[in-house]
C-alpha cells in the first residue's frame, strides 16, 4: 500500500543512500564546492535532507536553477500589464503567481479582478484560446529548455489551427550560457557542476562539453531522486580527484542514463529552432547574459505578446540590500544574506531566490531552517 514502485524503492533507499554517503565521505579530503544549477535539484537536496548527510568540507551551492527566480522584474511587470488590459486572460504556471514585480504580483492582480489562470501545460492555454475566441490569451513563457519545447509545440499547433487569439510573453532562458558565466566567477573555486537532468533530456549531455573543456570544471548530469543526486555528487568528487591525481581532463559524465543521451531530443531541438532564435537575455539578480534567451523567429512573431499587445518595457533597478545575485553565483549561501528570514521570507520575498519555491533561499527557508534564522 505505502510502497513506491520498484525503481523508486532503490532510488529512495536508505541503504543505497547510506553506501553513497560513505563513498562521498571517503572522497572528500579537503574543502570542495559543487554547484547544482537546477531548481528541482535544489529542492530535492533540501527536501531529502541531503546537506545533513554531507561531510562538513563539502559545500553544495545552488546556482540560478529556477527559471521563475531569474525572470527579470520587467518581465513580471509585462505579465501584469497584460493582465490589466481588458479582454485579456493571462495564463501561467503556478509558481509565477506570487513573484513580485515592481509594484504588484499576478496573484494580487487576480485578487483585484484580473483574469489570471494557472495551468499545468501550455496546451491548456491553446484550449482556452480556442474555447474563448473573443478573449486574448497570453501565456507567460517562463522556463529553461525543459519547458520551451512544449511552448514551441503549442505555438506551432496554434499556427496550424489558425488560432489568432493566443500569444506568448517570451521570457525563456538557456542553461549552458549561464554555466559559462558561473564558471568564470572570480573568487570562488568550483569543483564541479551537477547538471540538470530534465534540461539535459532536451539538449543532451554534450551541451556541457565546452564548459568542461574550456573551464576545466567536471560536469555530471544527474537525476532527481536522492540516490541519483548522491551518485552524481560521488561521480563529481571522483572525477575531481582523478583530475588532481593523474592531471586528467575535466569531462561530462551522465549519471541520469535512464533519460539523458549525449545528443538530447532531436525533435524537440528542431522545434525550438523552428520557432525561436537565440537572443541576449536579462537574468534577475545576475544581469544580462549574451545568447541566453529565446525570441520568436520572424514567421512566428505574431505570437509575441510584447509586440502584439504593446506591453511596455519598464526599467526597474534591481532590489537593494539582498545578495541573491551573489547566492546564485555561488559566492554566498542564503543564511549569509542580512535579509534572509527577516525582511525577506516566502510571504514577503525581496529577492529572486525567495520568490519561487524552487529558489535557493525559498528551499533553504522551507527545508533547512525553522524557528528563526538559524539555518546551517
Amino acid at each position, binding site marked *: 500500500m505505502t510502497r*513506491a514502485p520498484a525503481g523508486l524503492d532503490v532510488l529512495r533507499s536508505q541503504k543505497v543512500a547510506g553506501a553513497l554517503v560513505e563513498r562521498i565521505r571517503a572522497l572528500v579530503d579537503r574543502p570542495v564546492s559543487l554547484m547544482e544549477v537546477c531548481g528541482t535539484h535544489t529542492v530535492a537536496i533540501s527536501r531529502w535532507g541531503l546537506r545533513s548527510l554531507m561531510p562538513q568540507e563539502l559545500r553544495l551551492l545552488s546556482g540560478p536553477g529556477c527559471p521563475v527566480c531569474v525572470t527579470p522584474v520587467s518581465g513580471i511587470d509585462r505579465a501584469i500589464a497584460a493582465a490589466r488590459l481588458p479582454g485579456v486572460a493571462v495564463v501561467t504556471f503556478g509558481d509565477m503567481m506570487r513573484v513580485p514585480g515592481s509594484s504588484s504580483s499576478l496573484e494580487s492582480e487576480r485578487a483585484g479582478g484580473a483574469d489570471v489562470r494557472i495551468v499545468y501545460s501550455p496546451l491548456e492555454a491553446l484550449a482556452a484560446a480556442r474555447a474563448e475566441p473573443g478573449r486574448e490569451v497570453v501565456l507567460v513563457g517562463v522556463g529553461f529548455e525543459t519547458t520551451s519545447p512544449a511552448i514551441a509545440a503549442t505555438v506551432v499547433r496554434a499556427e496550424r489551427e489558425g488560432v489568432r487569439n493566443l500569444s506568448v510573453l517570451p521570457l525563456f532562458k538557456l542553461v549552458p550560457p549561464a554555466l559559462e558565466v558561473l564558471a568564470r566567477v572570480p573568487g570562488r573555486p568550483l569543483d564541479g557542476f551537477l547538471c540538470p537532468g530534465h534540461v539535459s533530456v532536451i539538449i543532451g549531455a554534450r551541451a556541457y562539453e565546452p564548459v568542461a573543456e574550456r573551464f576545466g570544471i567536471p560536469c555530471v548530469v544527474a537525476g532527481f531522486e536522492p540516490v541519483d543526486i548522491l551518485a552524481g555528487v560521488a561521480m563529481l568528487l571522483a572525477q575531481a580527484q582523478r583530475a588532481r591525481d593523474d592531471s586528467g581532463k575535466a569531462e561530462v559524465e551522465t549519471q541520469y542514463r535512464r533519460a539523458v543521451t549525449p545528443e538530447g531530443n532531436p525533435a524537440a531541438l528542431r522545434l525550438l529552432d523552428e520557432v525561436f532564435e537565440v537572443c541576449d537575455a536579462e537574468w534577475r539578480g545576475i544581469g544580462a547574459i549574451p545568447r541566453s534567451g529565446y525570441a520568436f523567429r520572424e514567421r512566428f512573431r505574431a505570437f509575441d505578446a510584447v509586440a502584439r499587445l504593446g506591453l511596455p518595457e519598464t526599467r526597474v533597478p534591481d532590489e537593494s540590500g539582498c545578495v541573491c545575485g551573489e547566492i546564485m553565483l555561488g559566492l554566498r549561501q542564503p543564511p549569509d544574506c542580512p535579509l534572509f528570514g527577516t525582511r525577506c521570507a516566502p510571504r514577503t520575498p525581496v529577492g529572486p531566490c525567495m520568490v519561487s519555491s524552487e529558489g535557493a533561499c525559498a528551499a533553504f527557508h522551507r527545508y533547512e531552517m525553522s524557528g528563526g534564522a538559524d539555518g546551517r
Partner: protein
Amino acid sequence: MAGDRIRLAHGSGGAAMHDLVARVIVPRFGGETLERLEDAAELPDIAGRRLDQGRLAFTTDSYVVQPLFFPGGDIGKLAVAGTVNDLAVKGAEPACLTLALVIEEGFAVADLERALDSAAATARGAGVAVVAGDTKVVERGAVGGLIVNTAGIGVIPDGVSLGADRVREGDAVVVSGTVGDHETAIVIARGELRVAETIESDCAAVHGVARAALAACPDARVMRDPTRGGLATTLNEIAGAAGVGITLDERAVPVRPCVRAVCDILGFDPLYMACEGRVVAIVPEDAAEAVVAAMRAHPLGREAAVIGRVGGRRGVYVRTAVGGVRPLVMLEGAQLPRIC
C-alpha cells in the same frame, strides 16, 4: 496587513491564513476561548450554567470544495463529516448540527438533492441530528454552485481533556491512515492533470476512530484532523502551541503510491496535502501501540501508524527516507504546481 486585498492564500490553511485570523479577525472579538484557535471551542459553561455531566464543544465551518462531487465524497458529506470531525478530535460526542446553504441561481435541484442526501446519510451514520438551517440563493456565478456551512455541538465526557498544552517530551505521534488522499482526489477530479488513475478522497466522519483511540488511551494528549495544510501544518500548530519539537519518520507516514506520484509530478509534498477523514493523535509513548491497534480495529483506521516522536529542538522535523533531516515549516499558502 501586507497588501490590502484578500488573496486565495488567505484561505489555504497556511501562514497567510493564520496571520489573517490572528491579526484581523480574533482581536476584534477577543476572549480566552476564541484565542485558543482550536478546531472546536470547549465551553465549561454557558452564561454561568453547566451541564450535569461533561462540557460542551461548539464549532462551525464553511465548505467551498470544487468540484462539488468528487470520488469518495461530495460537498454534503464533507460539510457534515468536517464539523463532526472538529468535534470528535476535541474528544466530544457529536450531538447536533445546523446546516446552511448558499445556492447559486440556476443550480440543478437534482444536484442539491444529491448533496443533501449525502449529508443526511453522513449525519445519520454519525448519530447527529440536523436541528436548524438556513437557505439563501445568490446570483449566477457568485459561489460556484453551492456553499454549505455547518455548525455543531457535542459533549466532551468528564475525564476527557485534550489540548496541546498536555503534550510531553517522549510522546508518540499517531495518524489513523494514509495522508493526502482528499487533496489529491480533488486535484485529479478538477481534470487539470488528466491523470488516468483516480483516487478516492478519505472524506469521512471519524468520530468512531477518535472514540476508539480515546478508549484505548484516556490519557491521550491532543487530537486533530489534518485538513487544509495537511499533516505538516497541523503538527506545526500543535508544536507551536505546546512549545515542543516533533520529529516524523518519513518512512513510517502512510502515503498511497498514487498520492506520491501526483505529488512528485506537481512538486507537492504529501505531508502538506489535506486529509478529510484522518485523525492525528499525540499520546504517551507506552500507549502508542494500543492506540494504533484500536484505530486499526476500526474500518476507517486500518492503516494507522506511529509516525513520530515529541522531543528535541523546537519545531517540526522529518527524518527523510534516505536518513537526512529537514524541518517541516508552515507554508505561506497552498502549494503551487511548479514549472518543470
